[in-house]
């Protein structure tokens, strides 16, 4: 599974479709379409990227929607919470040292995506970077502008310089490499990207992780932030009605003890699979015995069990939202 977490969403759908097809051809599986927000955040935040996309994409491609917020004035309120809930991934692109510091220390985001094709008048400090890494925020290197090199060498030089600086400052941890390709021509295959990363001083294993595991972790973290509630990741199995119980008992009932297992097997089983497992003979006997014991005091038991059965649940919980189904 290879990730490219930055493909700018452009209005030219023909070119975008070509870029996506080319990325799929190169071997990427998950693409994040990126919508840039500059200046003031609009009052009504809504996802600007249509879903499903108005053109056909390769079947194997998984599309995410991401928002990049250009941050220049740290004192302004950017309402990250609203942006966070509207998009799958939220990235921040700081322009100056102050906003970079703020993004590293406080702002609630998933990626810090510096524009590495420009020159920064400051050094990246390990201390601020480490702060971000500790919070689980990743740094992004976008190689696309350097490949296209439209301004005669400056963007490529800056890319190499900034990328080595960034890798030095982060000690190679928490780096995500993505393309930021406005044209299909700027995309390169995963192995080529890893080779570039090796030349920038990242090392082979870390280079592979940068387009694979680190990127995936950024996506999953973003998903967790938006969807989880008090440690509940997902309610995969709504719980089924016991056969002998009347209907009014079903409301709010959840399977309590086996949540972990059902989360794990969520992808195969799916939430919409209501068929219960065939009951073993032992279980049948146990149930029969229980029924016999309970018949007398069923009226007292019911309200108690019902309150016990209702557990916290996130507002919406489709089962297959998490890529791959398991979390690391």
């Amino acid at each position, binding site marked *: 599974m290879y990730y490219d977490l930055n493909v700018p969403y452009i209005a030219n759908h023909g070119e975008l479709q070509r870029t996506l097809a080319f990325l799929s*051809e190169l071997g990427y599986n998950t693409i994040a379409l990126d919508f840039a927000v500059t200046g003031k955040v609009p009052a009504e935040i809504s996802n600007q990227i249509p879903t499903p996309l108005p053109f056909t994409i390769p079947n194997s491609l998984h599309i995410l929607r991401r928002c990049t917020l250009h941050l220049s004035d740290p004192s302004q309120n950017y309402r990250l919470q609203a942006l966070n809930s509207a998009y799958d991934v939220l990235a921040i692109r700081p322009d100056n040292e102050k906003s970079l510091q703020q993004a590293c220390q406080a702002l609630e985001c998933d990626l810090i995506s510096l524009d590495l094709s420009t020159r920064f008048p400051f050094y990246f400090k390990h201390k601020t970077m480490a702060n971000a890494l500790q919070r689980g925020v990743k740094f992004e290197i976008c190689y696309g502008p350097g490949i296209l090199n439209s301004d005669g060498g400056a963007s490529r030089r800056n890319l190499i310089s900034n990328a080595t600086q960034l890798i030095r400052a982060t000690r190679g941890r928490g780096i995500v490499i993505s393309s930021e390709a406005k044209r299909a021509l700027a995309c390169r295959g995963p192995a080529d990207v890893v080779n570039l990363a090796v030349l920038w001083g990242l090392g082979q294993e870390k280079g592979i992780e940068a387009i694979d595991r680190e990127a995936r972790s950024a996506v999953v973290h973003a998903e967790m932030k938006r969807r989880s509630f008090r440690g509940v990741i997902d309610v995969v199995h709504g719980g089924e009605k016991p056969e002998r119980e009347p209907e009014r008992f079903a409301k709010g009932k959840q399977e309590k003890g086996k949540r972990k297992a059902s989360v794990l097997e969520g992808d195969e089983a799916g939430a919409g699979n209501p068929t219960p497992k065939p009951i073993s003979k032992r279980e049948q006997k146990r149930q029969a015995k229980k029924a016999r014991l309970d018949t007398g005091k069923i009226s007292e038991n019911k309200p108690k069990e019902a309150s016990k059965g209702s557990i916290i649940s996130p507002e919406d919980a489709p089962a297959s939202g998490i890529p791959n189904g398991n979390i690391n």
Partner: protein
Amino acid sequence: MVRIKHRYLLVHILYPDPADPPKGKIPSKSPEKALPDLVQFHRPSPNDLTPQLLARTIRDQVLLLYGDYGLGLVSSSLNGKFHPPQLMDPLLTLNPVKYLSPATSTAIVRCSRAHYRLVWAALSFMTQLTKTSKQGQPRACAIQVVRVSGTIKKAEEEAIRRARAAILRAKRESGEGSTDGLLGILGKDDEEVLQGGKNMTAGSDVSDEDDEMGMGSDGES
């Protein structure tokens, strides 16, 4: 006797931009539309792409990226001698481009083992093929290294495997489900090949008779 060790890069030249309509003809859209993306990206290279031209393009790119120092490092294997076609050794012994198939846009480039990453980076940063004549246009292309091998034989085998998988995949994408003809011949172990076809773009590993340093990004994980 100590051998001089090389790396052989198996390279795909991909054309991400749509094909130009042939000159003097009315651009007819229907056959262009019918081509699947796979075929368009792996379209045949233009006729004037020769091993010499490709070698010169690589050398120029190395010079651009690394300067004289870098070119000096790699040029012992990317041999600097550049023969005019009539003097060319038929085996291309002095050309770093050991194999070039314009029909499949596949090439095998030889470089020294110590500096193959330099050549690779130069290939990655390449965005166009140089024009050969004055009126010729530079053609946009992206170069993807699909395998790094210690022996030319393995690179060759990989090239054949990929070409075969690509044909099967293109057939499948264009919806020709017939089992006779090409699919019948090639598709004997088609399931395995098609599996490989799915991973065909991710692979890059190194196999040498002496040292195995697998890249690990082989797509099987």
